[in-house]
């Protein structure tokens, strides 16, 4: 299945294309954690993971066409 990915700030270092936005192929039934493995993002790198705009845990199974966005925890002022 095709997953649309957005990686921002230091998470962009893990982009296979060098761009913030790209697409990946994952087998049916793959989870968010499987995507992290594919992109080689170690657990030590903190991130906020949004799937279709919702904060989501790594064990979530992905569906074809899902949009996954990752960025570091931030705060604003």
């Amino acid at each position, binding site marked *: 299945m095709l997953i649309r990915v957005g990686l921002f*700030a230091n998470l962009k270092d893990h982009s296979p294309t060098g761009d913030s936005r790209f697409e990946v192929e994952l087998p049916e039934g793959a989870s968010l954690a499987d995507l992290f493995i594919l992109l080689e993002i170690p657990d*030590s790198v903190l991130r*906020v993971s949004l799937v279709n*705009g919702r904060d989501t845990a790594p064990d979530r199974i992905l569906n074809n066409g899902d949009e996954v966005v990752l*960025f*570091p925890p*931030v705060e*604003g*002022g």
Partner: protein
Amino acid sequence: MHGWMGKVLRVDLTAGQVRDEELDPRVARDFIGGRGLGIHYLLKELDPVADPLSAENMLIMATGPLTGTGAATGARYMVMTKSPLTGAITTSNSGGMFPTELKRSGYDAVIFTGKSNRPVYLWIKDGQAELRPADELWGLDTAKTTDALLEATEAKARVTCIGPAGENLVLFAAIMNDKHRAAGRSGVGAVMGAKNLKAVVVRGTRKVPLADPERFKEFHSQVIGKFKEATKDNPPPLRLHGTAVTAMATNNFGVLPTKNWQQGEFDGWEDIYGVTLTEKYLVRNSACFSCPIGCGRRTKVEVPGFEGEGEGPEYETIYSMGSNCMINNLAAVTKANYVCNELGLDTITMGATVATAMELVDRGYLSEEEVGRSLKWGDGEALVELTRQTGMREGFGDKLAQGSLRLATEYGHPELAMVSKGQEFAGYDPRGSQGMGLAYATSPIGASHMRGDPAYFELLGVPFNVDRFEHRGRAKAVADWQDLFCVIDSAGLCVFFSVRNLAEPQLDVPPTGITEYLNAATGADYTVEEVMKAGERIFNAERLFLARAGFARKDDALPPRLTEEPMPTGASKGHVCHLDEMLDEYYEVRGWSGDGIPGDERLSGLDLD
């Protein structure tokens, strides 16, 4: 006393006199300092219905017991007064270097009353204070004012001052310290201007006495050690890219206010967020006194038409002047930010007022002829020009200088002003962050995210994310965080460090680290519960002042756009903010009446009678 310097400076601007006053140790203990000290004096001495721009208003600058001690981010002061923008109190916070210098000059607070009959500045050096003529400074921008005052006093002194905006009584004029740091909100600069007070200059060479220096040193080194360990593999995004990086989060959550809050996502967000700022205009980061994060941005723009240098923009400016105006031109936003700093203007209200004007024009309620120029969504040049006009009260700027609510009301559509209690919101749309809506509506200073900031536990995962669309059961967390922020603002610390490192990672955020720092510095022997209770006391004292000034439930409001118009697109699509239900639950948690007035029982439990 330790931690506290034990002295308050009273400045009677009418008589042109200064005098020292002892800080009552009981008051210091119960109200901690900073924001707490401010409300103690305002409640005791200021008529809640006084005209904010009259000689009757008081202006208080107060540091906290941890300011200038070397505690991590112990670098802050608060400016407190009755706001000419809202008519409520305001508690405007700033960091940099000035607050530490003020503390080290021997004072916990300076209290200004009356009005000078000519422009003056206050000069303090190590316990000696005097008012000096400022006629030659009147009219100068904040950078020139600062340079002139350092010339006139000492090169190592620190300055806080107003620019032309404060002198011109722009209702959202700011007080700028160390040139680039702002006590920004609610028109504190206009109060200074109305008093003919141009600046405060301090030189302080004393050390802040600590009750238990060994204990302080040991705790501090633990705190810094943990911070360094945690950031080893994860350099703080704040240090790398500043607060402007937050637009990445808010846009992806669908809560980045766009087009005067008509939308929650902006196509151009990547053009204006922190990483782009780093790539294009960042010179280096900067830090306040004793801060290991260093979120400040020293920037420089060389794009023709927008040339300038200084500090910023911060996230709030990226929202108010960027997405909110549909402007994706970062050079324009940065330049407008510099103009705000130089003239002494609040960037949030400035940007939000321009956005409201843009919508008024868009809908045909205000003509471009009257504005004196074109004013379409996305026009960065208009933003810069109108900002300058506002600070100088020239042309249409004279109308913008009143803020968005008076502007929108004048043109027949007050509902287009995105405000609570007359002050413009921060950059988080409550349709996608319910608790934030409650925080905006119940903030004592009018809309502000820095009175509790539910974005932490609704969007940013600190300590963890709750369901941001769930409004039921949200009230207690909002109240606890409001009390925590009272503690942080009163101790003299910065939210960015304190929330993550000096409070327990629980939703009710017990301030264990802050308590330890306070005890080591002051010897007060607080329990964590006593500190949290002080926070609750301070918050209720502020509410009491508001009640006496005539504020009640009707003022704890949000515009219909947020409570009735579902978010049209993005990750928060379809939602509205359910304020009314949250208010019922919140008043109960707070021990206030159904009309939002603090009950006698709760007040006497907090020793506030």
